[in-house]
């Protein structure tokens, strides 16, 4: 715990100093890393911890981006627009969660995927509100400067990580992980699984909403395809799986690694970059299901896991 705090403080210090050390393109890359960390931790909260894998979390990002952009155009200051975006995404998550969290794993994943598409189609078809396929180009005069966006996203990433840390150490976190291990058993023991799942889901929508708005302010242009981005869904999944789901630092590591790969390849080889992600995803799921962080961990596993392990490995304890 103490060492986690120390690590966190160090990274935070580095991040705060960064704008003075790098050029504006590099700063924008770091900004995107921070955004990815915030997104990864959000996804971690619902999918990493409860096991309800969402394949469409980008929908909250998209909703946040449009909300933020439209409010900014209406004259609302950027920070208020961001807060409103987070609020709207959270408000959306409530009915969605109530409807979909009743479904078993794969159905939940697909439902969210479909929701992302519905979001994209809504943005495309509701031309009066969103300007449809044209997208929204934000006048530079209204936008916060790059550094401000950077610090805002730093705050978001820090908040997300702190939030996950708090949850991991709490009874709530324990209940979430119990849901992942065996929901039926958890219920029998008295865990209010419905309430817990919904809480985690709603919490996991809040930050992508804010991140979406901040992204819109940074990019100055959004359209349905770029914010209800299927690739973002993939990236959220890969980052957390790669780093280690249900852990504190896993998503951070995953986000950093992913952005590193991306920077090396996306401009020159956009298709290659995504193909690599796909390969990575398969490899991680097949061979490293607990992520890179788990390479370190050699602690004895909690009893609940053994049965699943035995089924997978035919009984041998590694």
């Amino acid at each position, binding site marked *: 715990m103490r060492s986690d705090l120390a690590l966190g403080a160090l990274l935070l210090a580095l991040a705060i100093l960064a704008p003075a050390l790098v050029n504006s393109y590099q700063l924008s890359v770091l900004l995107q890393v921070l955004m990815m960390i915030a997104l990864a931790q959000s996804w971690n909260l619902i999918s990493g911890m409860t096991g309800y894998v969402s394949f469409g979390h980008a929908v909250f990002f998209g909703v946040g981006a449009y909300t933020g952009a439209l409010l900014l155009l209406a004259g609302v200051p950027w920070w208020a627009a961001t807060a409103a975006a987070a609020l709207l995404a959270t408000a959306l998550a409530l009915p969605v969660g109530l409807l979909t969290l009743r479904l078993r794993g794969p159905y939940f994943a697909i439902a969210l995927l479909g929701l992302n598409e519905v979001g994209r189609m809504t943005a*495309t078809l509701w031309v009066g509100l969103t300007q449809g396929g044209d997208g929204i180009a934000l006048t530079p005069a209204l936008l916060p400067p790059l550094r401000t966006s950077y610090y805002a996203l730093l705050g978001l990433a820090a908040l997300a990580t702190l939030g996950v840390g708090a949850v991991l150490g709490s009874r709530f976190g324990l209940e979430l992980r119990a849901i992942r291990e065996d929901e039926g058993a958890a219920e029998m023991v008295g865990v209010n699984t419905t309430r817990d799942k919904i809480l985690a889901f709603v919490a996991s929508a809040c930050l992508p909403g804010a991140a979406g708005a901040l992204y819109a302010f940074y*990019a100055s242009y959004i359209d349905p395809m770029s914010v209800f981005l299927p690739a973002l869904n993939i990236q959220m999944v890969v980052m957390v799986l790669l780093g280690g789901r249900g852990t504190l630092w896993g998503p951070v590591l995953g986000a950093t690694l992913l952005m590193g790969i991306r920077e090396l390849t996306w401009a020159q080889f956009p298709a290659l970059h995504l193909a690599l992600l796909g390969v990575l995803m398969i490899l991680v799921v097949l061979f490293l299901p607990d992520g890179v962080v788990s390479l370190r961990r050699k602690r004895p596993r909690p009893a609940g896991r053994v049965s699943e392990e035995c089924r997978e490995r035919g009984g041998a304890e590694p």
Partner: protein
Amino acid sequence: MNRIFLRILLAGLIAAGALLAATTAAAADIQVGASVALSGKYSRTGQEQLNGYALWVDEVNARHGLLGRPVRLVHYDDESKPDTGAKLYEKLITNDQVDLLLGPYSSGVALAASTTAERHSFPMVAPGAASSDIWERGYKNVFGLYTPAEVYMDPILELAKAKGLSRVALIYADTAFPRSVAKGVKDKVAALGMSLVFEEDYGKASTDFAAMIVKLKARAPQVLIGGSYLPDSTAFVRQAKEYRLNPEIMAFAVGPGLPDFGTNLGADAEGVMGNTQWEPTLKLPGAREFATRYAQRFGHAPGYHAAGGYGAGQVLEAAVIKAGSLDKDALRQALAGLDITTIFGRYRVDATGLQVGKPGYAIQWIGGERHIVLPEENASHALVYPFRPWQDR
């Protein structure tokens, strides 16, 4: 714990290393940056535009460069996606630190990219963009080359009126440029007292028009106008043939202006009208020579997208010479006040950067070839009217 800390630091260093991996060009070169669609829906036209840029760069260098320095083209592929384009221009400006900017292809991508340019107060010469929206935002750094989209179909509508037609059907893709074409059509139809009997938009990636054509037939339009690009206009004509949609005049934006239209559709392209910003037959200084050199280098005749790319280079060159330097403010002023004629046509912009000096032309596919038919003084062939019904071909 130390291990994890070290590992994260390592990962951070990897990312930092990636950041610092910036390409450095020789200081003597002038770098011209552009992001043009080389894949996706606009790939064909984007490639043409890039070819125009490349040809211009080569010829400038053959003429001892700009301000005595060699010119180098730095380019990326925005995959026909506006947000990718915006990010690539950000990269060109802040990471690659180019000296000059040439615009992307398509109004949609230009809308996004121009915001990036404006944010950095970096003037950009933008061929490949015709939607007036781009210039209605009060930006100071975008300078257009194309005749605006809103007037694209005016000559064709005037022709229809002269022939006594009144029922107009309008279809368009839901992105910036086709919308602008559509807006212009609606305004003109109203101004000419004709009636709009059908209007529908379709998704950018749509190529299935069956349901739409069935509805169109029920409305019996005499004039069909499509705000489109190449893949959709090609698909539509094919399907119009299947379902035997026979208006008196059929016209599309962009698609028919390209040689591919004729190649892909063969005899089915006969009689389809469209518009063009430029044709090699126009009497413009250096146009014929440009067409010859382009054909020699790239193996096919240039369309107006290629000519626009080349013309943009010429405009940029003239502005640099006029400003006498690469200073952004001086360039901006030069571009705002320039009045020259390139191989592409006249360049003169209004206070917002919108092109006002250059006219547009209507073309038609006749006998397997593309001809200018309107205005008549520029025509290379007489207009063929009406559109021959599919069942009579």
